[in-house]
């Protein structure tokens, strides 16, 4: 066992401290920035979930947002005025994650035999099917309320502690988004720990073997079918968890939030950061969440000053960044910004 040097500990303490202080610093710039940070954390969670499927097991999933949608809708249906059900979140979140995992298996089972690019298209189709159902399942029985979406979703509450309401604790004013920030941070840290532990576990190594060479992995006695299904299920459950939290945080969801582009955004985060490397994925998610927002706040005013009007919508810039991130990373740094060791070897080695 190597002894961890004091400097590393110091660094970790510093990071923890700055993460804890971050929302208050951001709140100075405006509550909007705290919300942006919250979304960044949600995306980290999503990207880490997708990383299990894409990064660890090497299965490109382009319909990942469907699981996020399942989690979000399960929460919205079981904890809102829509069906007049108000179950507490510690019951609903696990249900959402479990149902999302079930969807993951449903998607995974028929696609087990498919190779990479086919799988990508099928998952994409699956994501679209889920979205079409969300839009249309308002008739004949109103389940999803169609394109209008579901409103007045319950926030997280523990006893009288309501995450959506501002409060003064120990003389410090804490707004709703700041409370959610800490909650999201805690859950994400847990997700990161699970991811890292998974990667070095028996399961993680088996996934890696499947990714490198499925036939070889099977001949070594790895049950490729179950492990691939497990990857889908685990990835999906993280998506479902993130979806539930999104639902509670927003108090409103509609099919609009779960379009194909969202799936591609999460894929971009994983690819940019480095498939298979937990810290790379976190970096990718943080970059692709914050940079577009920064641009939104800078490019907009600059355009106003130069041309007197908005020439390019911030949303377009955001999407162009995602597109270029995917293309440029693949062309110039295929293993991502922070590549995982194995992946680096694999992606720089030219196959014939």
């Amino acid at each position, binding site marked *: 066992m190597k002894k961890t040097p004091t400097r590393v500990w110091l660094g970790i303490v510093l990071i923890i401290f700055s993460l804890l202080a971050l929302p208050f610093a951001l709140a100075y710039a405006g509550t909007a920035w705290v919300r942006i940070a919250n979304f960044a954390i949600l995306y980290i969670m999503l990207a880490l979930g997708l990383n299990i499927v894409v990064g660890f097991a*090497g299965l*490109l999933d*382009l319909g990942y947002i469907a699981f996020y949608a399942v989690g979000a809708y399960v929460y919205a249906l079981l904890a809102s005025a829509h069906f007049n059900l108000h179950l507490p979140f510690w019951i609903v979140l696990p249900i959402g994650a479990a149902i999302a995992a079930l969807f993951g298996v449903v998607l995974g089972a*028929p*696609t087990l*035999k*498919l*190779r*990479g*690019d*086919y799988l*990508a*298209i*099928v998952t*994409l*189709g*699956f994501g*679209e*099917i889920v979205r*079409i*159902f969300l*839009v*249309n399942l308002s*008739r*004949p029985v109103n389940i999803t309320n169609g394109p209008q979406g579901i409103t007045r979703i319950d926030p997280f509450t523990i006893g009288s502690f309501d995450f959506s309401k501002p409060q003064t604790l120990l003389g410090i004013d804490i707004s709703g988004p700041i409370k959610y920030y800490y909650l999201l941070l805690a859950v994400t840290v847990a997700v990161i720990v699970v991811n890292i532990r998974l990667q070095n576990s028996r399961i993680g190594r088996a996934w890696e073997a499947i990714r490198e060479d499925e036939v070889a992995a099977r001949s070594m006695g790895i049950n490729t079918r179950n492990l691939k299904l497990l990857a889908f299920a685990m990835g999906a459950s993280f998506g479902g968890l993130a979806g539930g939290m999104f639902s509670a945080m927003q108090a409103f969801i509609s099919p609009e939030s779960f379009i*194909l*582009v969202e799936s*591609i955004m999460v*894929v*971009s985060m994983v*690819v940019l950061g480095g498939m298979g490397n937990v810290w790379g994925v976190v970096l990718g998610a943080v970059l692709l969440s914050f940079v577009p927002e920064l641009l939104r706040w800078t490019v907009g005013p600059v355009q106003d000053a130069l041309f007197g009007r908005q020439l*390019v*919508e911030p949303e*377009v810039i955001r*999407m*162009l960044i*995602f*597109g*270029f*991130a*995917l*293309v440029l990373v*693949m*062309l110039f740094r*295929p293993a991502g910004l922070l590549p995982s060791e194995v992946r680096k070897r*694999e*992606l720089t080695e*030219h*196959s*014939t």
Partner: protein
Amino acid sequence: MDTFLQQLVNGLTAGSVYAVVALGYTMVYGIIQLINFAHGEVVMIGAMVAFTVINLLAPGGLPALAVVLIGTSAAIPVCMLVGYALERLAYRPLRHAPRLAPLITAIGLSIILQHLALLVWSRNILAFPQIIELRTFSVLGATISNVQVAIIAICIAMMAGLALLVYKTRLGTAMRATAQNQQVAGLMGIDVNRVIAVTFIIGAALGAVAGVLFGTYYGIAQYTMGSVLGLKAFSAAVLGGIGNIPGAMLGGVLLGLVEALGAGYIGEFTDLCQYAWLAGHIDACRGGGHFILFGSNYQDVFAFLVLILVLVLRPQGLLGERVGDRA
């Protein structure tokens, strides 16, 4: 019977457009085993360029046919250029990279193209101006319009032209040789890079025309139209057997039919009131009411269901050959 024939006509029209778009996917896949994810966006750009030109010329008083022809001939070179640029800048450098790399690039390109189109044309829907005098014919109780006839005829002509090109010309021979074995084709004196670029260009040109036809049929074009159309066409290509040119044609037409008939009948089949043992329990059924589980608004689901079913049951497609590596 009337519904059946009518949906058959509609399905055939949409299906022949899917077939032409599917050709773009299947040609590229056949030659370099790449899903050119951005092909749907090329089709969209074709429709947008053509619609812009058509809308400019429409008030000029030229005959409708000439306007549409000029619009289309403006769209074709633009799309060819885009197709070539995609291949040259994004796919060629990754030709020997692991398979996932060009696929991810392709997804990125499709996002880029879609949002560049948004920059150029904004979110507005471009409408097809009322210049073509719509005439309808009644055939065995189904109505078919002159536009539908024209679309089907043009698609058949293009497919026939492509088949001639691929199976009867030197270029076609070179394409097929490259598809079989790039290295050997290279040794035989075929400029592989050029052949691959030409494949992209031809696919893009077909896509441009298909985009115009699709837009004309539905009367609108928008920057988002490429992704779903592309996906459906891709499903069609897979249905027929990806990499197989006759397969793409067959798959496109079949997919159009499945979609049209599915949309036409799904409401009837899932109307729970027609099942006597259920109808008694549903209030909505009293007095001849309906309780339709899934209506025609689920039309878009069919293409994806077909795609998933084909890949699960017969991954090589209807006309494809079984390749060990493919499944």
